[in-house]
């Protein structure tokens, strides 16, 4: 049930004179993989799914599924299924008949469609709840039914449009686990849209960052974290430290001092970025010394902002690293974690 999806030059302009919602997107989703499209609201990420599903027509560009051009193919004949942020369970059907819907509209006898629906409900951990009406389900259960309903359609590509955003944190964790399990069992091709970098990291093999309708960067999560192509990608993935300076002979010069870079970087102006979780308190030699200006906590981990010569350096320390505001601390910025983003002209 997994197909290979390829988007080429996909462009959508909603109205004359308006900037394109999506601008020349090239994206490949290999069979059985999960690609997350990550972007802030209004970045055009939902448009990607609507064009793929055939709910909107692209202004330019094409959608290929297993090599076949889907231009002009109506949504019901594309072999894709979509799960929206709202569960959208048909209120006049039971949970089981919702899941059986795809089989029913394709002409399967009711008994067989229901038997298969029961299997899919079992798969999402809702065995025995088939007779419930949608209004009798919790929001987490509703979204599980929606997922089962989409899977029961046996799509070649499963499209997930922020499917877990409306759920509270523990439920979202549960759904992430469920999706990881389902991927291990069924290996569907998944195109996921989300604004949450943690969700993208938890679920996807590769992440495509979209901003203002344009693809900024596409790669494995680790690569996006370690080597963001732009400041906006860095920020979207939770990067906070940004140090403007000059690169000369593989060394970044800034108010923080001269910091050697891990790989070859062209000379010229560049912004040094270091992820907060890579920064640690220095036991001996410190790369940077500064004054703690703010401490807050994520769980047990202190999130510290250090003012070093007028530059803010953000660090996510390990539990037990007790620092207080006003203290002078030395920080280690591991060479491998240093990355320079070129300054775009203009």
């Amino acid at each position, binding site marked *: 049930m997994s197909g290979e999806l390829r988007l080429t030059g996909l462009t959508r302009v909603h109205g004359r004179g308006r900037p394109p919602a999506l601008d020349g997107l090239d994206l490949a989703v290999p069979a059985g993989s999960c690609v997350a499209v990550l972007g802030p609201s209004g970045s055009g990420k939902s448009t990607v799914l609507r064009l793929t599903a055939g*709910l909107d027509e692209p202004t330019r560009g094409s959608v290929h599924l297993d090599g076949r051009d889907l231009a002009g193919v*109506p949504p*019901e004949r*594309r072999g894709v299924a979509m799960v929206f942020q*709202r569960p959208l369970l048909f*209120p006049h059907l039971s949970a089981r008949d919702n899941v059986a*819907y795809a089989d029913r509209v394709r002409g399967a006898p009711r008994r067989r469609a229901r038997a298969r629906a029961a299997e899919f409900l079992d798969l999402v951990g809702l065995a025995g709840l088939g007779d419930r009406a949608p*209004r009798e389900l919790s929001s987490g259960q509703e979204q599980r039914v929606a997922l089962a309903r989409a899977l029961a359609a046996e799509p070649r590509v499963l499209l997930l449009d922020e499917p877990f955003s409306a759920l509270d944190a523990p439920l979202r964790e549960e759904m992430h686990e469920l999706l990881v399990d389902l991927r291990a069992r069924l290996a569907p091709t998944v195109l996921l849209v989300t604004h949450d970098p943690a969700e993208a990291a938890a679920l996807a093999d590769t992440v495509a960052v979209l901003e203002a309708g344009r693809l900024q960067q596409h790669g494995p999560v680790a690569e996006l974290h370690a080597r963001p192509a732009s400041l906006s990608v860095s920020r979207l993935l939770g990067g906070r430290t940004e140090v403007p300076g000059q690169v000369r002979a593989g060394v970044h010069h800034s108010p923080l001092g001269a910091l050697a870079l891990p790989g070859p970087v062209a000379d010229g102006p560049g912004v040094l970025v270091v992820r907060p979780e890579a920064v640690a308190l220095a036991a001996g030699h410190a790369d940077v010394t500064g004054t703690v200006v703010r401490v807050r906590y994520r769980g047990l981990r202190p999130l510290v902002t250090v003012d070093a010569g007028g530059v803010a350096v953000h660090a996510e320390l390990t539990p037990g690293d007790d620092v207080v505001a006003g203290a002078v601390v030395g920080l280690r910025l591991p060479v491998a974690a240093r990355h320079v983003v070129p300054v775009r002209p203009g």
Partner: protein
Amino acid sequence: MGLIGRRAAARPGRAVLATRLGRAVLAAWLVLPLVPLLLWAVADRWSAPAVLPQELGTDGLRDALAAGGPAALARSTALGAAVAVLATPLGALAARALVVHRVPRPGAVLAVLLSPLVLPPFAVALGLDVLLLRLRVPATAGVVLLLTVAALPYTTIVLRAALAAQDRGFEEEARTLGATPWQVLRGVQVPLLAPALAGAAFLAFLVGWSDYVVTLLVGGGRLVTLPLLIGSAASATGNEAQVAVLSLTAVLPPLALLALVGVPGRRARGGRR
């Protein structure tokens, strides 16, 4: 009933009392006119000064049967049903065009659709009667046609509101699950709209059921429905009992229908959280 509701029930506040009083007045307003009607229907003799009928009996019923009440009842039912069957889908189409497809100048289109509400039916019926006669449209078909147009504003308004409130996501979800537009209409949209469709059909039925002017003028007196029969009976004197029986016959079926229509409506509303 929530906490607040229970507290209010235990010690009715002023607002609650006012609400109850309002409801009682409203109920009296609706029910009181039926009381003399009920009394007249079973009164064989009820002369002026007496508060209650002096003699009870079934003369009214007998006269109503003799005057062709059952046939008129059947004709009214058929007329109401025909108008409902035509005006409901037409209203649904108009509503969908207004809500979904963004017709050019929707305000003007809506104004045209609502115009039957504004124009005096007598003038419309008289004018169109001439046209229908010239076109040799059979009288009964002409009545159905005109009343369907008269019912369109009601069905359009009801269905437009329901469609506007409906989440288009249901339709899109069904399409990606493999349903053709026709299957979406049958399996998703119509069931979701069922309460509104029932309400619209009920209103359209009432337009046909209760019409007098169009049926009289365009029907040329050949289509004798309940309102026509009541009108002719009431214009004569001395047969109040018959008029009362016929009037009750005209009032009770819509009430029964209303109860029927109200049931799916409530069930669907209960489904929303």
